[in-house]
């Protein structure tokens, strides 16, 4: 797929800027704080309806304005599509395809695909499990847009169930000894057992329903996450091996909170409910849900050593690059068209070997938008088949 035009109006520091892309690679050149990442962020929003840096739409709308707009023309095998997002400082965003406003935002997802790669992505390896979960979720959303709906439902049920548990704990009015606030303390179970029937929450009927809802929707999350990792892992392994000259074996392993013995909805739900039973007392005392995919982890090991704690800087960089290359390939094979690649500040950080591996992969097949402060910081090969644009104070001009 190819992004032909992008028009930003009152978006971040862009007042009214039209950009036309006409080469496989576009280099956005400019000093700090001029709007390079803002442009990439617009592309990210078109692909995922999410921004990895903004938490609220208000931040995306130009300061002092009520509404900001991103419009674009995308060329796919099937023809041209016009995409439009209207962001509001106060109020809900609206999205449109080919001039028609969509009732469900879900229908906007999956039209454009992009893989984002910035220097922040090292946090994928170094950061907490939450970061790996959001990465996985963003990828899944692009592969099967309905996942966005499933995840939102899951989070909704989770919030309701947490509110319920909290409220039950309050109603129960049982003091919780500080030492029991920690999870996985068998003593809690022992104590509760001795407390006998008193430990049974007053509204067992409602709790059982929230359990069932969480398990039903949670299983869908788990199975999809397992499936995507299963497909991604071998591709990432291949790239990591290639970049490390066959010296390193990368393993990407999904470690779900609820074990996945079999890819069968009924089996997963049963396992989910069984684990909830196991942790019931602890959940009751802590007043929060301790079981489910909101506690999933993705483990990266290099030569059987956890990359998070023991990986060198170089290994971690190779790992992240391999993951990104795997994302590109996976999206391409699932969607049937090459996604865009958005490289934010990251190219200069890669050594020549890694730069070349990346270049070999994308060739002219993946439209790539690259931000940089200096052209000299990466290999001259990148300049071939590149369009260079200068970004200055929210204005873009050919250089």
């Amino acid at each position, binding site marked *: 797929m190819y992004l032909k035009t992008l028009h930003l109006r009152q978006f971040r520091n862009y007042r009214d800027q039209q950009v036309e892309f006409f080469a496989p690679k576009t280099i956005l050149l400019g000093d700090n704080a001029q709007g390079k990442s803002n442009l990439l962020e617009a592309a990210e929003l078109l692909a995922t309806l999410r921004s990895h840096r903004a938490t609220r739409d208000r931040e995306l709308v130009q300061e002092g304005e009520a509404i900001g707009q991103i419009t674009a023309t995308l060329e796919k095998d099937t023809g041209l599509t016009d995409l439009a997002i209207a962001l509001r400082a106060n109020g809900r965003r609206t999205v449109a395809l080919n001039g028609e406003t969509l009732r469900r935002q879900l229908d906007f997802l999956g039209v454009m695909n992009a893989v984002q790669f910035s220097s922040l992505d090292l946090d994928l390896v170094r950061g907490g499990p939450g970061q790996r979960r959001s990465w996985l979720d963003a990828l899944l959303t692009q592969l099967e847009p309905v996942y966005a709906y499933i995840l939102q439902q899951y989070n909704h049920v989770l919030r309701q169930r947490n509110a319920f548990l909290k*409220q039950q704990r309050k109603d129960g009015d049982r003091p919780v000894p500080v030492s029991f606030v920690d999870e996985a303390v068998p003593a809690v179970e022992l104590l509760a057992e001795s407390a006998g029937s008193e430990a049974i929450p007053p509204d067992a009927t409602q709790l059982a329903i929230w359990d069932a809802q969480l398990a039903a929707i949670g299983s869908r999350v788990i199975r999809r996450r397992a499936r995507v990792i299963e497909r991604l892992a071998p591709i990432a392994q291949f790239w990591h091996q290639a970049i490390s000259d066959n010296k390193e074996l990368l393993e990407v392993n999904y470690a779900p909170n609820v074990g996945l013995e079999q890819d069968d909805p009924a089996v997963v739900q049963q396992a989910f409910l069984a684990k909830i039973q196991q942790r019931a007392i602890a959940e009751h005392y802590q007043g929060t849900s301790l079981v489910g995919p909101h506690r999933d982890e993705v483990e990266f090991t290099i030569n059987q050593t956890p990359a998070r704690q023991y990986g060198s800087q170089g290994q971690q960089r190779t790992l992240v690059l391999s993951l990104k290359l795997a994302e590109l390939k996976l999206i391409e094979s699932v969607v049937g068209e090459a996604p865009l690649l958005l490289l934010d500040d990251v190219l200069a950080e890669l050594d020549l070997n890694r730069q070349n591996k990346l270049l070999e992969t994308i060739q002219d097949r993946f439209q790539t938008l690259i931000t940089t402060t200096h052209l000299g910081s990466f290999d001259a090969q990148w300049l071939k088949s590149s369009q260079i644009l200068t970004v200055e104070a929210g204005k873009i001009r050919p250089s």
Partner: protein
Amino acid sequence: MEAKQQVGFCSVCFHLSAEPVCEICSAPNRDHNTICVVADSRDVIALERTREYKGKYHVLGGLISPIDGIGPDQLHITQLVRRVSQQSIKEVILAISPSVEGETTTLYVGQLLKPFTRVTRIAFGLPMGGDLEYADEVTLARALEGRRDLD
């Protein structure tokens, strides 16, 4: 505004009503053996528009939602259980939107009523949390017709 203040709730089904017992509850020609349970009075109005349904109603006055501090005690659930257990009700139809809260409420009410009568739920073809209120008459009529036993 003036008119609204005068409107209270039916003491039987909790539908909006100026009288202590609403028109639907006091109508002699309606089916006394069937109760349709809805979240809100607006749902009664929507279902009445279909002209398909001839039974009685019960308005819960909301949906179970712990986030908003709404539990079964805040809804007219006890009154419903009393109605069903004390009268010879042949069927209770749960016509509640399939949102997360709607699903929980449906299952909750269903569990309480099952010992007393047959409990069915309407078939919702509307994906992703469709609202009764916004469904057109044909869709609603079809949903009623295609109701199935709650499992």
